[in-house]
Every structure is written in structure tokens, then in C-alpha cells.
């Protein structure tokens, strides 16, 4: 009984550290509090330049929440802090970067504007070139601010990029706009907006029986072109690679709105593919303060070890070192279920990987048949 309680969603809440989704005025207030406390400590009898406490975004601070009722497990971050300090010799710039991003976000919030991460990167690159050199750095700093203020990235005024696409038997309607039929969007599908607010307000309707998450855009394109969603009533959704928040948000909305629809993932047979599946399924540590919200019960349709017999030997290529790194971190993850770990073992042991495109060996329409057969046989884990 005790163990059951421990793993319940409610218990984990005590340890859960999350980023609030807040209106601009509240976020501004949090930033103002931070500035005032900074100045107070600078002015105090024993003056100091206060460190910035950030929720630790490392695996040692990640916890697993095993869903009891909804069978959705997720990764969340707990209350372990790391600090950014001006005083540490190599971390001085990182410290100042956090303040700089806070300054820009504050200005955005005052003007009630929104920018994408890329726009923010260019703005910072121009104003403080000594501090910001790459988009990755900017993105990490934004996550630092999220971890500091504990408010979602979207609340800061930073929009997710519009990267994902959706197609199939789904009707979308923005408030006050026309209804959009995603099955008539053509082979590229309907682009998913990065504005989470807008996604929240979308009215969605469907008569599909399945939701299929596709890793790669090329596969999505082929399936949409072949109108597979008409053969098997389904919705196709892709993030064109590593899942972004907007795509996950929409997927989560659909899972909440249509709880009976199984969500099936079609990924390459390599550790990176599995990692993408896991991100949709559990969330991530990097954005751990927000990502846990959008965890969905995604099932692994293919490619799996059992499908390798369908692929010619020549299509199997060696694993790259990066693949092995990803495999290693996935293996050590507490949240990964046994059957997934077994699949991963086979991958690593064989030292090979295969892409979905390898199925085209049997003809361009083989993919559709393959998917249909698997769904009918409920061959997903």
C-alpha cells in the first residue's frame, strides 16, 4: 500500500517542481521581486552579489511519476537547486546572460509583445555579442530563466517555433474563424502554430480511431499524400524531428479531448528514434519544469526488432557513437519500461540501425499496408 501511494501522482506532487503558466503581470512581478532582492542584498550591511538559484535540470534531479489513473508516466524535476554565481571564475558570463534575458523578457512583457526563440537570439546577438554566440546558448539561458522564475517559457513572452504539422481526420477551428479540415490540407499537412494560447483556444473535432505520431517529415509527407488517414481513420502528426512544445501541446490536447484514441508512434529503428518517442511519452529533463504536463500515453508501433525481417540486410547501417550515447542514457533512465529496454538491447548488440524508408524496398505503398496490418493486429507496445 505504501509503495502504491509513493508512486501515485499525488505523492509526487510534493516533490514536483513546476513552472507556472502565468499572465504577463505576474511574471513581471516575479522579475521585479528578483531585482528588488538583488538590490537589497547589494545594499545590506554585508553586501553581496546574490547568486541565482535555478532548479537543477540534470538527471540527478529528475524523478518519475507513474500515473495511476490515466496510465501516463512522466518525468519531472524536483527541488534540487544549482546556482549561477557571478563570483565563480568561469560562470560569470552565464550569470550575466540570465540577467540579460530577464531584461529582454521584461521589456517584452511591458510592451505585451511575443517573440520566437530565434528572434530573441538575433536581438541578443546584436545587443550583447560578447555574451551570446549561439542559439543553443540562448535557449539554455531561457531555460535558466524558466528555472529561476518558475514560470513557463510561454509566460515569458517567448513563443515556441512553428515546426510541427498535422494532417488527417481532424477539424480545427480558431475562435471566430472558419473550420479547417486537415484531411484536405495537401501532402504537407497543416502547420501547427507556435502560439500556445491559440492552440489552447482551438476547437477540435475528429472521427478518427487512431493518432499516429511520425518522426520524420518525409514519412509524414508520403503518408499524407497517400491519404492513409482515409484508409484507416486516423490523424497524422509530426514534429519533424525532436518534438517541440507546440506539437506536444496539441498532441496532449487531442489525447485529453479524445481519450479513446490510441496514440501510435512511427520512428526509425535507432536510439534517437526511441528517444523521440520517449519525449512525446514522458517529457524531457531539459524542459522538465514544463514538459511533464504534456506527457501522453504513446505506444511504439514501429520500427521494432520484429520488423527487421522485412528489411533487406543492406539497409541496416552501423550505429554511430552518438547513437550509443543516447542508448546509454536511455538504458539508465528509470522510467523506461522493460520491453523498450529489451528492444534497445537488441539495437545496441546488433550495432545496426534502420530507417523507415528501408520498407520502400517492397514498393512505395508497402508502408501503408505495413501500418494497417500492425494496427489491425494491435502490434504495438
Amino acid at each position, binding site marked *: 500500500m505504501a509503495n502504491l501511494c509513493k508512486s501515485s501522482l499525488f505523492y509526487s506532487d510534493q516533490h514536483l517542481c513546476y513552472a507556472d503558466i502565468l499572465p504577463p503581470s505576474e511574471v513581471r512581478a516575479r522579475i521585479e521581486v528578483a531585482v528588488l532582492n*538583488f538590490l537589497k542584498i547589494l545594499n545590506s550591511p554585508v553586501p553581496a552579489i546574490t547568486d541565482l538559484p535555478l532548479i537543477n535540470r540534470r538527471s540527478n534531479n529528475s524523478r518519475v511519476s507513474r500515473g495511476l489513473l490515466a496510465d501516463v508516466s512522466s518525468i519531472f524535476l524536483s527541488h534540487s537547486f544549482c546556482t549561477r554565481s557571478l563570483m565563480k571564475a568561469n560562470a560569470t558570463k552565464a550569470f550575466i546572460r540570465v540577467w540579460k534575458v530577464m531584461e529582454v523578457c521584461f521589456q517584452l512583457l511591458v510592451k505585451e509583445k511575443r517573440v520566437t526563440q530565434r528572434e530573441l537570439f538575433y536581438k541578443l546577438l546584436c545587443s550583447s555579442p560578447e555574451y551570446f554566440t549561439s542559439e543553443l546558448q540562448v535557449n539554455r539561458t531561457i531555460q535558466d530563466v524558466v528555472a529561476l522564475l518558475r514560470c513557463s517559457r510561454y509566460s515569458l513572452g517567448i513563443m515556441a517555433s512553428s515546426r510541427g504539422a498535422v494532417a488527417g481526420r481532424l477539424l480545427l477551428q480558431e475562435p471566430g474563424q472558419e473550420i479547417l479540415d486537415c484531411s484536405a490540407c495537401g501532402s504537407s499537412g497543416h502547420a501547427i502554430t507556435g502560439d500556445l494560447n491559440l492552440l489552447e483556444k482551438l476547437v477540435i473535432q475528429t472521427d478518427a480511431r487512431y493518432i499516429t505520431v511520425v518522426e520524420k517529415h518525409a514519412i509524414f509527407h508520403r503518408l499524407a499524400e497517400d491519404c492513409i488517414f482515409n484508409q484507416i481513420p486516423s490523424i497524422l502528426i509530426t514534429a519533424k524531428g525532436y518534438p517541440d512544445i507546440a506539437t506536444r501541446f496539441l498532441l496532449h490536447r487531442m489525447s485529453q479531448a479524445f481519450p479513446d484514441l490510441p496514440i501510435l508512434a512511427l520512428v526509425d529503428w535507432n536510439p534517437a528514434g526511441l528517444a523521440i518517442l520517449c519525449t512525446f511519452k514522458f517529457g524531457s529533463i531539459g524542459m522538465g519544469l514544463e514538459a511533464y504536463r504534456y506527457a501522453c500515453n504513446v505506444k511504439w508501433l514501429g520500427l521494432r526488432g520484429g520488423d527487421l525481417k522485412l528489411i533487406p540486410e543492406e539497409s541496416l547501417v552501423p550505429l554511430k557513437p552518438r547513437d550509443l550515447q543516447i542508448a546509454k542514457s536511455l538504458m539508465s533512465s528509470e522510467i523506461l519500461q522493460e520491453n523498450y529496454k529489451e528492444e534497445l538491447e537488441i539495437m545496441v548488440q546488433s550495432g545496426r540501425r534502420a530507417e523507415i524508408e528501408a520498407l520502400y524496398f517492397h514498393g512505395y505503398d508497402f508502408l501503408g499496408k505495413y501500418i494497417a496490418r500492425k494496427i489491425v493486429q494491435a502490434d504495438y507496445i
Partner: protein
Amino acid sequence: MEISSAQKVCQNLICSAIQRCRISDDLCRLSVVIKCSSVSDPQIVRISISDTGVGSCLEEFQDLNYTRNCVSAEKWDGVLSVTTTSICVNEIYHYNLNLKQNVAARRLTSGTEVSLSTYESMDDLIAGITRFFQKMLILKIPNLDFEGSSVSSAFMSHGCESCDHSEASYSVHMKVAVELLVERADSPASRSENLLNDGILLPFPMSNIERLSSGLEDYVLKHGNSLDKECRACFSSREHLKVGSGVACCTENLRNTEHVVEAVIIISELPESSSPSCLGACGTATKVIYFYDFSPCSIPQSSLKALTSIKWKSYGLTLRASVADRDGSAILEWENLLPHAHIDIALHSQQKTQVDRNLVKKAVKLALDDLKERYTGILLSAHALKICNFAPDLAKTIAGLILSSNDLGFQGECFSLLGVHSQEIGEEKVVDCIREKIIATSNMKMKKSNACTNSLHLLKCDIYEQAMQVLSTGCISLLALQ
């Protein structure tokens, strides 16, 4: 230039003369007379050091260190003529010290006169003794006036508030007058020149360390006593010097004596336009002037080691080498000192027993810390310097945050914390204010624990706390439902 044994003995004699004058309650006079007789060739120079302090006894002179020096052994035969009164004034003793016999004689007032004859060059002797007296000036020993200054006018012009302005009380303050007279036999009229013409009165009361600071300032302003007066070209005012001082003391219970070490450090920066002669006189190395019990003396090895063992790097200085020069002073050489910057150090140890190396170290550290506290932005360790480099950017960012806000309450609170008045709000002012505070903070020693506890308070605010409480109670009530 090597110090000859005659010079050394002269210095020792002057020191003991000054001690005798200080101990005496009456007004005293110390005279150093250098006479040259052209009768013989090479010329014999007779040096006489006389004082009207308390009398001395033979033992004091026997204790004089006379180091055998091959070069000057030929110039001075090691004979000292001593004439002194005893403790009670009635008797006068006259000694011819060649570490041999005593012959008693008679005289009337208390005092001591010591003479010696040598073949040394007169000019060398004069130069050496003058330098010695100038070093002594650094100490600014109370009640010691170097003859030559118009005493009453100096008193008036200094304008000290704490002094008693009456002439009568002034005379009580002045206890010892010092003069250096030179008689040259080869000049047409044998006249006495007085070579010491300094003597600035200081307001009373002043502690030893304050006097030492003042004296070292004069020394630096005169480019290490190479000039007679302050160099106006390089230093338009004393304010350009950065002075720090420290006193370390400990009481030894067994003997109930207090050991005191005083240290004064002055950092000066010559302007770009300094003449080469000024720059040359300064040099880049630091000459550490050492005093023991109110007299200049050579630095003991333990003190030199103490200086070397100080962690200069934490003050942003890198010590390249430390040597004791022939004068007995310690020379410290630095790496990467700022161009035109110069450091001067004076140490004064008042201890009866062996010099405690830790006390020297402590005194110098206190002086360095004093400098850091008084003047922002100097003696920063490499780490602190790095942080200071980032201070303008951080200040600008935070100022930007404050000024972009449209919440007047928030802005008002920030300005009041910074001490900026609403009338003078301008971006630059706010940035400067924050930047200075950051630099001042990085200058201080940061205790790690301080920073840690502070960081967790960054987001501490009542509303936030309440929100967290509501959430946790919400969870508890759900559990109860189960």
C-alpha cells in the same frame, strides 16, 4: 654604495643620542659636526656627535657593533673618543675607546660627545649622514625638530587646530633640536653650513602610526628623498597618494612587554608627463624602509622572509624577487606593475626581543586591507578584477530592467535602495550607482555561506509563498478524499 664601518658607527651613535634626548625631560640639542682638516694628505675628517640628553655610560659604547670591514679599516682606526656625564651630572667622563682604558675627567652639564677621526671622504660622510637623518624624518618622532626651519613660522602656517597656540606651551612640545654642521678647512672663511632644513610640525596628539604615514608621504613626494622638496610636477597634492596603514601587536605575558609592528604602504602613480629624472628616481622596485625602536636599521632576515611569504597574489600583485641591498633595506621587485605605479613600504618594529615574523606579516596585511577599504578598485586580485570587468554590463542590464518598468512603485523602491533621488534620474546615473556598488562588493572578502543563503531569498516574497501554500493544501485535501 657600501656603508663603511665609520658610517655605520655614526648611525648607531646618532640613534643612541636620539634615545638619550627622548628620555630626557629637558630641551635637548643634538649636533653632528664634521670637520675637515687640510693639514694632512689624505685629509682627516673628524666627526663629532654631541647631544644634551641624559648621560651615558661606557657599556653603551662597548656594545656598539663594529664590523670589520677591510676597505675602511685603513680609513678609520676604530678609535672613539667619548665624553659624557654620568646619571648625576657632577661627574664627567672622558673615554678613549679603543676597547682599552678609561680616564676620568670633569664637566658641568649632562650630555655626551663622541668623536672619531677617519680618512673617509667628507662628501661621502655628509651624504651618508644626511640620508640617514632624512630616513629618520620619516618617523616624525615627536619632539624632534631638525634645526634650520623657522620654527615659529612653521607652526603658524601649519594651522593645527588641536595644538595649543600659545608660544609658551609650544616650547614644551619641542624637546630636541638636531643640527648637522660642516666645517670645511679649504673654504676661505670657515663657516658652518646647516644641511638639514626641514621640520614640519604635526598637530598633536598624533599616534606613532599616523606620524609614520605622514613621514612616508613626505618621503614619497620627494621621490624617495632624492629631492629636497616635494616634487610639484609629479604630485599636485598629497591626495594623489594612496596611503594604508596597519598596526599589529601582541603582548607577551611572561615578560609583560608589548610587541608592536607598524606598517605603512603608499601606492603612488606618476602622471604620464613625468620627467625621466623623476621616473628614474622612483624606479619600479619597492624599497622597504625598516625602523627598529625609532631608528632606521637594516631589515632582519626574519622580517624579509615574512614579506616574501605574504600572499601578494590575492592583492593582485606578483612578487618577482626580494633582496636585501647593501644599505640593509629590503628591495621588492614586482611583475607586471602598472606603468608609472610605485609602491613604498615602511615598517617600524618596537620590540624588545626577537622580531616576530608573524607580526610583520600581520601588520603588512592590515595595511594592504586598509588600502583596499579606503580606495575602491585597487589591489584587486585577478579574480576580483575579472568580476569588476563585468560590473558595467551587469549594472547596465539591471538598470535597463528598472527603467523599462512602468510600475512607479517598483521604480521608486529601487531608486531609494540605490540612494538616487527622483530629480536626478537618468540612465547613466543609475548605471553608475549600481556599478560602483558591485565593484565595492567584489572588493570585499566574500563569505561563501553568505552568498548561498542569499540566493535562496532571491524569490522570497509573500504572495509567492501564499501561492505555494494553497497548492500544497490542495494536494493534501485530495489525498484525504482517497
